């Protein structure tokens, strides 16, 4: 990831030991095609995180058949990827994005935790109450992901101007 998105222009002194630039690569225009690929991947991951998450969330809140475990699994995975991609950005926008991503992660992991607890650790099983808990936690994560996507859109619009 760190080799993408930043052409070695002389305007930036790159410390041989450590990456010194902490500004979001997305927010700097250089016009090279690697730049766009990085932006595509970043936006793709964030939006995919939201869509998978929302997909898991929709459906009758008490009905286990409406909520597919594979979709929860994929949502957790893509949210983790999105969080990691947001590391190391020193702008204010980057900090808020990272915070929203972490919130979503926590919510989804909690949802998975409740599931594991109900099915494996104790004998409660997937009762409607448990399913409701799982889905509502995932719903919280949807809000966090929505915030992330909104921020991304706002940033894109601002830059275009």
């Amino acid at each position, binding site marked *: 990831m760190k080799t993408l998105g930043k052409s070695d222009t002389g305007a930036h002194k790159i*410390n041989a030991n450590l990456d010194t630039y902490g500004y979001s690569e997305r927010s700097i225009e250089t016009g090279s095609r690697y730049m766009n690929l990085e932006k595509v991947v970043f936006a793709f991951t964030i939006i995919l995180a939201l869509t998978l998450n929302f997909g898991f969330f929709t459906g009758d809140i008490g009905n286990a058949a409406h909520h597919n475990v594979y979709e929860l699994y994929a949502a957790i995975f893509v949210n983790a990827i999105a969080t990691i991609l947001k590391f190391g950005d020193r702008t204010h926008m980057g900090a808020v994005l990272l915070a929203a991503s972490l919130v979503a992660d926590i919510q989804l992991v909690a949802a998975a935790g409740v599931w594991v607890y109900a099915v494996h650790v104790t004998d409660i099983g997937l009762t409607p109450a448990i399913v409701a808990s799982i889905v509502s936690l995932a719903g919280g994560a949807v809000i966090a992901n929505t915030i992330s996507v909104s921020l991304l859109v706002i940033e894109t619009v601002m830059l275009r101007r």
Partner: protein
Amino acid sequence: MDSIVFLILRQMRAPLLLLTTIYAIATLGLTLIPGMDDKGQVWYMDFFHAFYFVSFMGTTTGFGEIPYPFTDAQRMWALIFIYISVATWVYTIGTLIRLWQNETLQKALAEHRFQRQVRQINESFFVVCGYGNTGSRLVKSLRKRLIRASVLDLKQDRIDALMLAEHPLFLPGLQADASTPRNLVLAGIMHPMCKSVVALTDDNAVNLHIAITAKVLKPELKVICRSDSHEIEANMASFGTDAIIDPFDSFAKDLGLAVDYPYQYMLSDWFRNESGETLAPVMQLPKGRWLLCGFGRFGRAIHRELVDAGMTVQVIEPNKALLNLPVNAVIGDGTEAVTLNQAGVSEAVGIIAGADDDSNNLSIIVTAKELNPDLFVIARQNQQANSRLFAHPRAELVMEVSDVLATKIRTLLTNPLVDDFLSLARAHDDSWAQNLTERIRKISPSGFPEVWECVIAADSAHAVSNALTKGTDVRIEHLTHDHHDRDVSLPVLALLHSNSQGAFCMPSGHASLAANDRLLFAGSAASRARMQWNLQNEVALGYMLTGASLPQTWLGRWLQRANS
């Protein structure tokens, strides 16, 4: 610090992404591949067990194929991912370790730690720039008195030596360039408890820069500098450096004093140095013809002082192109008998080996002593490590730069009244000084007397300040007598009394004290502790003042009032 954390996170992105992806794929695969339970039925792993398996596979823990032994399909999947996941884990941990050991990070952490340690100091401390021979000597003598300092040095191994030195008092140290204002501020010159900054690096220009920076940033800070160049000293003095110590000039001046005032010299030796024998005889410099080997800064300073004192000085110097070399100088090293004979070693009373190489100096001493065994030898020692080679009886007086500097500076920092006393004492003649040395020998027969200052202030002399505010007349003799029996005098001498009217050398016991007076005493450590009673304890002071014991409890005082 925050930027360091962000940079680490950035560098960790690639390994973490790889790790997450590998784990996700492995877990998913394990949930999709059919297994067999113990009854022979097809059984699919759920995410929880799959993730559990992948976790202990990736970290090479390997609990086993749980809950049921794997089918071959599962085993094939696991086989592939054993190699991939373990490698990814190792890559992740390796990257983290490499980042942690990064020099920039370690340096930033050390600076941060140093800054925090300095900020936590809550007593008076000094900033010492330069931890070479002089710096380490100075810091060691400060540490013995439990005085804190923060240390800067350009070399990391000097700071390591500071950390390794065995002493319970912890001193913060940082490897940094002391001439950078930022590093001086990190070391605490702007800290309210910082009393002084001492510039002891071996580069005069750096010392100058430290002095200017300190004076500009905090004018009320006391700045003490070392220098051996007269131009730089003039420069330092021009913006008000509080003390500039040139080791060669300093030693030479003391030597010049010792020619005609040997007892004054002995007093200055006793009050400044930390340990020694008071019973040792006074050093008498013989008058007559002296040989001086080496006409560098040291040689020049000695030459000037000895000539001013009336001695004949014959210079021996190998470099005939030196500026201001006396016309009759003998050109040579001084290490061979030929040169020494040419300079007249057999008629000389003393020789000064002042070259800047220790082996040359030792060679000069040995050769000269062979030719004239009665010579008084003064040697310059350049390397601290060679102390044993210059020990008595090879040389009667040894000048080692770091020793001269450390002693002078320590006196300046801890007992500044000693310098005031010694300058007042110069006004007296040598028999006065001889008298004083006799008196000191009586009170401190075994080693050098301890010399300490006393300030009449509320925290250091509680009882005395209280008595003074009430208007009682407290005199020096009330402090110097024993609080067990006021007719017995403690073995202390009051050397100096500094008050609003000025400084008085050897004050009489009847001199009255006032608030904020400063006193300099010499005596044994035990008598110093005894005097604390008179200074701090009201009952003891009351006894000293009146001869009667005051009752210590409220009840006792009430009874006394009722009976009187």
